[in-house]
C-alpha cells in the first residue's frame, strides 16, 4: 500500500462463498480520491467476489478493509452495504417489484440520511441526465435492461459516496448512457470520490482507469499503472493492456496452481 491519501484500502487475505474455502487470496486494492481503479480479470477470476466481499455479502471474508475517516479492524464479516461511504452499481440491476423509480430513490435517500429537499434537488438533475424524468412514477421492473441499469446508476449517484463500486459498467447501456455514466463519474471524481470498476472491456479500461489490479485464478497477477502492468508482463512501451493481460494470464495458467 502506498501513501496516506486514500479513500478505501483493502488487504484481502482470503475470501469465499463457504466458510474456510477461499476462492480468492492475497489481493490488495487501494482507491485514492479522484482515481479510477480497474479490477480486471477473466471470467471466474474473482472480480465479483471482491465486490461482494467489500459489500459484506460473503460468508467467508478475512480482510483488512479501511475507509477514509474510519479504521476497520480485521474483520471476517464486514457490514459494508451501500451508504454515504460506498455505492454499488451491480452488473444485473437489483430492483423491488412494488416500487416506482422515484420510490427506489426515496428509499435510498431515507436509509442513507438524505433529506427530502436534497433528494428532490439531486434526483432532478440525475433523472434528467439519464433521461428518466418521464418514467419516474413507473415501475422500473417493467423497464428495459438498459433503463433498469440507469435506475441503479441514479440511486448510486444520489448517495454521493466516497467510493463507487461499479460492476461491468458497459453492459446493457447504450453508448449515450455510457458517456453519461462516464461524465457523471468524472464529476464525482472531481468532487473527490474514487471509483473501483470491474470490466472485461480492456480497451475502455485502459483509456479510463488510472491504475489496475489484475486478478487471475483467485489471486492478484499484477497491479499498478499501465506502465507497471507492461513491466510485469515483460512487454515494451506502447503495448496495449489487452496484450499484457493475455501474456500475464497465459503465463499464470502455464505456471499452474
Amino acid at each position, binding site marked *: 500500500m502506498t501513501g496516506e491519501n486514500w479513500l478505501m484500502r483493502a488487504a484481502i487475505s482470503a475470501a469465499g462463498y463457504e466458510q474456510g474455502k477461499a476462492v480468492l487470496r492475497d489481493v490488495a486494492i487501494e482507491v485514492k480520491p479522484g482515481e479510477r481503479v480497474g479490477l480486471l480479470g477473466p471470467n471466474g477470476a474473482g472480480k465479483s467476489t471482491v465486490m461482494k466481499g467489500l459489500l459484506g455479502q460473503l460468508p467467508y471474508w478475512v480482510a483488512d478493509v479501511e475507509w477514509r475517516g474510519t479504521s476497520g479492524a480485521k474483520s471476517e464479516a464486514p457490514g459494508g452495504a451501500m*451508504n454515504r461511504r460506498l455505492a454499488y452499481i451491480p452488473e444485473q440491476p437489483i*430492483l423491488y417489484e412494488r416500487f416506482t423509480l422515484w420510490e427506489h430513490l426515496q428509499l435510498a435517500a431515507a436509509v442513507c440520511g438524505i433529506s427530502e429537499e436534497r433528494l428532490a434537488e439531486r434526483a432532478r438533475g440525475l433523472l434528467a441526465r439519464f433521461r428518466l424524468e418521464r418514467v419516474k412514477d413507473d415501475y422500473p421492473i417493467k423497464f428495459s435492461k438498459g433503463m433498469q441499469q440507469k435506475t441503479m446508476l441514479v440511486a448510486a449517484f444520489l448517495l454521493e459516496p466516497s467510493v463507487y463500486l461499479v460492476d461491468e459498467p458497459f453492459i446493457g447501456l447504450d453508448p449515450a448512457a455510457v458517456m453519461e455514466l462516464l461524465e457523471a463519474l468524472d464529476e464525482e471524481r472531481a468532487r473527490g470520490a474514487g471509483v473501483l470498476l470491474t470490466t472485461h472491456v480492456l480497451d475502455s479500461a485502459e483509456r479510463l482507469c488510472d491504475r489496475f489490479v489484475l486478478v487471475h485464478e483467485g489471486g492478484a497477477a499484477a497491479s499498478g499503472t499501465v506502465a507497471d502492468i507492461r513491466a510485469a508482463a515483460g512487454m515494451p512501451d506502447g503495448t496495449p493492456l489487452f496484450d499484457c493481460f493475455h501474456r500475464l494470464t497465459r503465463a499464470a495458467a502455464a505456471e499452474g496452481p
Partner: protein
Amino acid sequence: MKPEGDRVGRLRGKSGPLRLICMRCGAFWLKSIRAWRLTLDWTVLLYIVLPGLWIAGGMYQDLLRHPPDWIGRLPGQMPVAILAILMVRGRLRTFAEHGDGLFLRASGGWVRMMTKAGLAYTLAARLAVSAAGAGFMLPLMSRATGWSFEEGAALALSAGLMGFVWTLVRDAAERRLQGVRRLLAVYGLRAAFIAGWVPAAAWMMIGDEPLPAATVIGALIVGGAWLGWRRLHRTGTFTQELEAEQRAYGDNVGWVLKETEQAKRPPAGRRPWVLRKPRPLLKRRDEAARIAELWLRAMLRESEWMRLLLQFASLGMAAIWLSPLWLAAIAWLGMCTLLLLWLNGLWGKWETERYMALYDWRRELRSEAREIGRSLILRPVALTWCAILGLHAGWTYGGLWWLEVALLPAAGYLLLSRINRAASSMLAARRAGRGRPDAEESE
C-alpha cells in the same frame, strides 16, 4: 440385428414432439409436487392433511345421510356457477420453454404438433376438473334438485367444454393486450362467461328433454373446434406461451413458494394502481416515517397481502360481533397481537428484499421505521374492531352503552400505541439475546 426401419421408428419416437410434450408435462407435475412437498412433508400429511380429509369426508358422508334443510333450499344455479368459476380459472397450456426459441420454433411441424397436444391436454384437464367438481356436488344436488346421473354428466361435459373455449378466448385476449388493459379484459371476459354460461346451463338442465343439452354441448364443440383450429394456425405466439407457462407454474406452486423469486409475479401495469403519485401520506417526514410510508405503499400494492389482511379483518369483525362482550374484548387483544406479529413478519420479509438489503440500515432507524409501519396498518384495523365492539355493546345493552362506539376506539388508540411499543422493546430484547446486532426477527 433389428431392421433399420424399426430403429428409425424408435429414434423418431424418442425425439418426437408428442414424446417431448409428454416429458414436459410429466416434468411440470413432478416439479410442482416436489415444491408442494416442501410444505406437505410427512408430518403435515400425517397430522393435518389426512385427519382433515378424514373429518371432511365424514362430514360430507353425514350430509348425504342426513341432509339438512338448507340443502333443499339451494338454488339450482349454484352448482352451475361453482363449476363456471372453476372453469374460468384455466389457461391454454403448450408446455413451451425458453430454449425452444433456439431451434424448435423454426420447425412448423413440431410447433403444430406440440400445440395440438397442448390443446388436447387443456381440454382433458378442463374435463377432469369439471368432472371432479360435478362428481363432488352431484350427490348433494340430486337431493336438492333431483338431478340424475345423466344430467350431472351432461353438466360436467358442457362445463368442461366451456372451460376449453374459455382458455382459447383468454389466450387470444392475452396475446393482444398488455398491462392493465389485459387484466381488465380477462376479468371482463370471466364475468361475461359466467353470466352467459349460468343461464345457458340452467336452461339445459330444465326438464328431461335431451335437446337443450345436445344444443349447448354441440355449440360448445363447434366453437371449441373452430377456436382451436384458428389457434393452431396462429403464428407469433411464443412469448405469450412462455408467459402462460410461467403463470401456470406460479398458480400451481405460488402458495408454497410465495417468498421465492420464481413464484414472484411482476405488477400487472407499467404504473401502480394504488397510490400512483408520490404525494406524502404522513405529516411526519423524518427518515423512519418516510421508510414506513414506503412500506405501506408496497403493502397496499401487494394484492395477496391485502387479501389476507381484509380476510383477517372481516373474520375479526365477525368474531367480535358474534361473541359475548367479555370474550370479544379478549379476542380483540388476541387478534391485535396476532396481527402485529404478522405485520412484523411481513416487514421482516420486505426488509430482506434484495433492493432493501443493498443498503446499510442503521439499527435504530430500522427499529423505529418498523414500529411506525406496523402501526399504520394495525391502527385502522384494530380501531375498526373496537368500533364493532362498541356497536355490539350498544346493540346488546342499549342506552349509555352506545357511547362505547366512540369511547372504545379512543381507549384502543392509546392501548395500541403501548402494545406496539412494547412489541418493539420485546423484539429488540430478543435480538440482543440472540447477539445479532444487524439482524431482525421475521416471525
